[in-house]
């Protein structure tokens, strides 16, 4: 620390309006997406009524900047929203549609107005292809079976492509409406949102934004799965005592609770920096995503085992979390690949200025 550098604050408290965002969506998802709905929507993993209710709340519009026709909520608000989505496993492709709509909104003048307006309003559902599309080679697209169009990078263009025919759901562990989609290039009637460097920039931004939103959702999943396991550990009696009094049962739950707290705080911090100065503290988004992904998987796994044999039955709600902890994320690839991104920041920065993550040189 040099004489000009003052200490960083670590204030994780929510502002009153952020608390109200959290409480509003907590109540909304608890009310509108009970676990019975999650089950009813299997295996498709999509509920159009729930989607319509969220559209009435202008949830997609929240995520679009005001200059582009949206309501311009900040990233902290958005991760508070996705935490509640993940906590309740609500059957809608929220993160994909937000990043796809944001990309369309950022795409500029060539986007037909009705696409943008209807996407912001939630009348048309957009999704996002995580990997560059190769013409002639279909890729698995999250929500591909229920989306009206997909935002994809094809060669050097970011396109908005619709499918000629309705795509069939591919049955999958996460019970999501994924589909094989052969994404057409710009030579067809796809809308070109951007080309060249701008296209690659928007694609990279969408991937980053999806990770931040999903970090929030995974925090919520960690919480949802932990709550089920804690309730069971408090109530279930074996050998004459509640099983939560056994350290072999309690301590893994403590580990999950610690993961939850850390995952939530890294996610909030990443979101705060994304609002504040997106060019700063970039390593926080891959960190938040990877940490929260591992937390959610651990929470669901520990949870299934805390419930014992019952946890392995389909009657147990815990298995719904187990399926989705990976089922909602693997579309983006191996979570451990985030370490490569983190390494670029960590190992790059020491060559640049001798300082690492605020550590004195």
């Amino acid at each position: 620390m040099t004489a000009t550098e003052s200490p960083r604050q670590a204030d994780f408290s929510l502002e009153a309006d952020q608390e109200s965002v959290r409480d509003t969506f907590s109540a909304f998802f608890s009310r509108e997406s009970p676990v019975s709905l999650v089950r009813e929507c299997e295996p498709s993993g999509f509920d159009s009524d729930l989607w319509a209710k969220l559209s009435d709340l202008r949830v997609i519009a929240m995520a679009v900047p005001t200059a582009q026709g949206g309501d311009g909520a900040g990233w902290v608000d958005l991760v508070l929203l996705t935490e509640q989505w993940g906590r309740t496993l609500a059957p809608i492709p929220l993160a994909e549609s937000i990043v796809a709509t944001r990309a369309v909104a950022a795409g500029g003048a060539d986007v037909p107005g009705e696409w943008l307006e209807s996407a912001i309003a939630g009348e048309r559902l957009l999704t996002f292809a995580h990997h560059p599309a190769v013409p002639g080679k279909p890729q698995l697209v999250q929500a591909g079976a229920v989306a009206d169009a997909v935002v994809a990078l094809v060669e050097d263009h970011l396109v908005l492509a619709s499918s000629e025919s309705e795509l069939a759901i591919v049955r999958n562990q996460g019970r999501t409406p994924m589909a094989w989609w052969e994404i057409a290039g710009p030579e067809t009637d796809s809308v070109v949102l951007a080309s060249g460097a701008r296209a690659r920039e928007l694609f990279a931004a969408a991937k980053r934004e999806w990770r931040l939103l999903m970090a929030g959702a995974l925090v919520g999943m960690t919480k949802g799965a932990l709550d089920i396991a804690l309730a069971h550990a408090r109530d279930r009696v074996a050998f004459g005592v509640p099983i939560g009094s056994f350290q072999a049962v309690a301590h893994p739950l403590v580990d999950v609770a610690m993961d939850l707290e850390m995952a939530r705080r890294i996610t909030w911090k990443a979101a705060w920096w994304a609002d504040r100065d997106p060019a700063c503290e970039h390593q926080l988004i891959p960190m938040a995503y990877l940490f929260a992904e591992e937390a959610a998987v651990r929470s669901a796994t520990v949870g299934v085992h805390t419930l014992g044999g019952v946890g392995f039955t389909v009657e147990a709600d815990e298995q719904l979390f187990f399926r989705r902890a990976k089922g909602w994320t693997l579309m983006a690839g191996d979570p451990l690949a985030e370490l490569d991104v983190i390494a670029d920041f960590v190992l790059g920065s020491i060559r640049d200025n001798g300082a690492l993550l605020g550590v004195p040189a």
Partner: protein
Amino acid sequence: MNFDRLELDESTRAFCGEVFDFLDEHLTEEVHQEEWETGAGHNVAFHKALGERGWILPTWPEENGGAGLGSLEAAILERELAVRYAPTITKGTTTLVLSAVVRSGGDDLKEEVLPGVASGDICFCLGYTEPDVGSDLAAVKTRAIRDGDEWIVDGQKMFTTGAQNCQYAFLVTRTNPDVAKHKGITMFLCPLDGVEIQAVHTLGGERTNMVFFDSHRIDDRYRLGEVDKGWEILMGPLNAEHGMGDGDRPELEQRGGMYGGANVEALRVAIEWAHDLESDGGCPADDPSTRRRLARVALDLEAMSCAPGPMGRIISSEYFIRDAADLIDLVGARGLLERGEHGSVGNGWLEYCHRFAQGTATYGGTTEVHRNIVAERMLGLPRSSR
């Protein structure tokens, strides 16, 4: 929510300058070298220099030996001492105990010790655990038996770190063996004159102690609080040590958690090593597997910085243990070389961390005990059957 750097006004910036100048002058290479050799966690000259500035009790008024600092300035001071790895273990135990002395000590006792604490002439250690007690503090066997205006103390304390530099121990004694274990405990600020102190050296290079009380007579004025009500007196400092302290201080980032200073430095050393050119012109930082492992440690550091309270206490030591082992593996044989040896990495820092990290899982109660605290107090799980 706020993660910006603090905006410091002119007087606070000037204060930072004073802290830097002070540390440049007093926290010398000789002080670090002495600490390396003794592992005492304390340096008499450095501690007294802090006392002269009123920085042992920085928020106390100047007339009481403090420096009248605000809580922000005090937090800046503490953070800088940690970042620069100043030997402040005994300062830490002294101030931890002080609140109990102020709250529960008699006026003549306070008169006897407070000025000396502020000046750095008097230090306190923790007379907590015993050979057969471990983390189950309420099971102490050291007896204190009343004899008129005096008490006769018999027993043995373990891990009384800093006792050789302290004048008093914050002593947990059993005064009534016939009631439930939490109910027969009395606390003393026990003078250590004439008490046998035996050094115990740790894997981490620290010196701690065994302390033997053999019919050790102390005046009743050294008692803190009521007889047999010691457990309540003990809880204040104990909670603070468990990371459940007061919420008044400004929330400053503690990078890498409780043992962040050592941990952050370990990653910095490993990153520096990773950029050393090898004979073929490449460097370890070009290797994808090395990159991932360093990234994992960086992620651990971020997570540790974010873990609150007793969770932070568990995480900062367990991640430290894991990361220290991984970093020394990564570096290989050179990582084993000690401070001062030719070819050592980071002047032996990883070698040191790999040993030192182990003890952190026991300090202030083991991480397992802290898991029980989290389970029962934060998660509402039933009390463990132990």
